[in-house]
């Protein structure tokens, strides 16, 4: 199973195995990773599963749709490398992916 590393805003790393096909958000929720709220449950309606994706990974992930970018506008302190983790699907290609969670989600 691909390994995903969630890095908290203060640098704490948690690496977990997430089954392919699940979203990076689901991987966090199922493993009780702090820093991802996912209030709407993955319907891309709340921007509380917001993560920053380091540059080396950002371009390897399928580009966000317009609706995701619209939703990221609402997120807590969005940056250029912001994504909604509910929209990143775990695959073997993403084995080793690192995402950084913001200070808070809302």
């Amino acid at each position, binding site marked *: 199973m691909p390994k995903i590393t969630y890095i908290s805003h203060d640098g704490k790393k948690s690496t977990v195995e997430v089954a392919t096909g699940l979203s990076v958000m689901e991987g966090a929720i199922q493993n009780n990773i702090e820093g991802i709220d996912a*209030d*709407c*449950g993955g*319907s891309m*309606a*709340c*921007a*509380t599963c917001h993560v920053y994706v380091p540059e080396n990974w950002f371009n390897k992930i399928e580009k966000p749709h*317009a609706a995701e*970018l*619209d939703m990221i*506008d*609402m997120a*807590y*302190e*969005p940056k*250029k490398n912001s994504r909604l983790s509910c929209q990143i699907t775990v695959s073997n290609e993403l084995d080793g992916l690192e995402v950084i969670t913001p200070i808070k989600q*809302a």
Partner: protein
Amino acid sequence: MIKTDAIVIGAGPTGLFAVHQLGIIGLQSEVIDNLDRAGGQCIELYPDKPIYDIPGIPECTGEELTKGLLKQIEPFKTNFHLGQRVEEIKQENKFWVVKTNTGSLFSAPNIIIAGGVGSFEPRKLTLKEAEKFEGKQIFYSVTNKDLFKNKNISIFGGGDSALDWALELSKSNKVTLIHRRNEFRGAAHTLSEIKKKEKEGKIIVKTPYNLKAIEGDKIMTGIEIEHEDGKLEKIKSDYILSFFGLIMKLGPIADWGLNISNKTIPVDTKSFQTNKEGIFATGDICTYPGKLKLILSGFHESALAARACFKRARPNETYRFEFTTASKSIHDRLGLKGD
């Protein structure tokens, strides 16, 4: 004090269907919701997005589903108390007394909490200084636009609220519209109006910029914004309007003495009762082994909770299960004629 059989907290699909299920078994209910209209997440988060998993309805939007549910409960003439957030729940003998933030009081033997993920609140600016000026010079909604005349107004956000208010307030103010990226999301007509006003010099558009600092001690005098490439710029501002949508907060629900786990309320799936007798939780806010956060699950949960309410609301009567197709008493409650 309003007395009823069941108080339904939350006017989303699950709460609305709870009203229906209470209604067909002959129980009265009163609905309280923090938003100013019924529909909950359906109406607030995805009014135009299609939903494909409502049984028997191949496709409908959040708004259509809400309208349908409201029509379905019309016969019960239920009172809605909108724009009110439940603050307190207290037990008085066999009754629950509910108090809202506007001071309304309710009493009932049953409460159904269909509160979704909590109540919606505006997403606030992240800078600490923003708190100090909130309600004075920083606003998350506009209730009195007369406040702004010949003022310097900085508007943050990229959606319809930000764009509409930028247009409206540019008539009599100096408006700067600030957004984190170059693309705005709004109706095509609105976007072209903004472009026009920008050309005329009526609106200054600053993209891609984020808020960096708020200046001023007792009175806010201006703001500093930061370009994506790090360049800083100061803007004189008498007011900030910030439109970053709504977030959901569990809020006072956490203080009602209910068991809470991961922002949800554990329930017994026999009746969807919480750890407090007569308080039920249905929809997204409840949790139990196997819970699915689907609208259809909320419907089922509300149907069972409503039956459980009957025993406490009508302790001397026997609940009889009936089908809506064949029951004369249900048809009477629905106001149908000709049976």
